[in-house]
């Protein structure tokens, strides 16, 4: 059986997919994951989930955000407005990053 492995680098962070392992049950999957994925990389916690329990939908089946013109929902579109506060500027910067990566892909 195959188990997908998710690694969290530090406490409070996100568990991000990092690979998978063969194992007959959850307990061994955790041990194998710890050996294969937690030994070298900085690790605070690991999750395992059976591969068959994972659902997927991809860009062939679905048009995800950024594929159609939705400029009205980006802070960056309101060019005549200066961000009112630091937290607004921060949000706008995060959005700009995503916009750039969408542009780079298309």
């Amino acid at each position, binding site marked *: 059986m195959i188990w997908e492995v998710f690694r969290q680098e530090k406490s409070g962070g996100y568990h991000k997919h990092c690979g998978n392992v063969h194992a007959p049950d959850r307990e061994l999957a955790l041990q194998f994951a710890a050996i294969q994925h937690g030994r070298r990389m900085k690790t605070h916690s690991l999750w395992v989930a059976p591969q068959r329990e994972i659902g997927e939908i991809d860009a062939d089946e679905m048009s995800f955000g950024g594929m159609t013109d939705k400029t009205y929902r980006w802070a960056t579109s309101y060019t005549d407005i200066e961000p009112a506060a630091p937290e*607004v500027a921060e949000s706008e910067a995060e959005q700009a990053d995503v916009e750039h990566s969408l542009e780079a892909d298309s």
Partner: protein
Amino acid sequence: MDLETVKERAGPRQFAPKDDMPEKYRKAATRMIQFHANSEVMGGYLEKPFIRQAPSIDRKLAFSAKVQDEIGHAQLLYRAAESLGIKTREEMLDELANGEGKFLNCFHYPMESWHEVPMIAFFVDGAAMHRQATLKNTSWTPYAHAMDKVCFEEGFHVKHGESILSELMNGSKATQEKTQEAFELWWPRIIQFFGPTNDKSVHNDFAQQVGLKTKSNDELRDTFLDTYVPKAEKYGLEIPEYPRIEYDEAEETYHVNEDDLDWDEFWTIAKNDSEGSHEQIGSRAHAQAAVEWVRESMDSWEQASNTGTPQAAD
């Protein structure tokens, strides 16, 4: 984990669902996140009619995107609240419908004209974002993760709201006057967004001790005023004489004279007992009942597909 340990370890993203948290922590966090989630729902409902009333196609698109975002924020937050193991999403939604669920004071008032829109979309979203940015450092990790996504989206809300304000304040004299009127009506409510001064607020201390909150009501209100008073003035809005707001030269921050605010009204609202509360809760409950059949059919579908899963042998 006992309460002493919790207070010692309290810090940004310190606690997660796998930690054995004391009931007092879990209840306080549930109360706070449920309130936040409810407020997202009620804010979304208050703004929903303005998708239809928006004066241009751009505003309409932006408004419908914004309302979608708010309902999405509520969903994220109910998940974060559920992860504390005190209440289910179902229970929290029912509490909101039957009038037990508490939510932000500003969303208990009717909003009728387009001139009022930036009072919510700029000032209240601005206030909310000001607070939410500090909650990225809350001690309950699922809450902090929800804030990452919420803050990512909120920048658009605040700028969109400010763009509406700018447009109105550059409009005809009559438009400017109506906007000023709306501002005078909403301004005290916006200040009350941050609640009463620290010593009057009941849950404040504990929430700060265990790291659920990182800033006090007072700090948040003052720094909000520092940014948004000059903004209002920049667009030509006049700050009403009451509540008195004074600039403290030494501390370089604004303070509000709390006695000038209507706290009876605030506490009536906090009990969901104002006329507006009944109105807003009632119309939301009505909407929830109208789509009961959707939830029911999803539940029965879920049950039907679950019976296919093999049971563990014992």
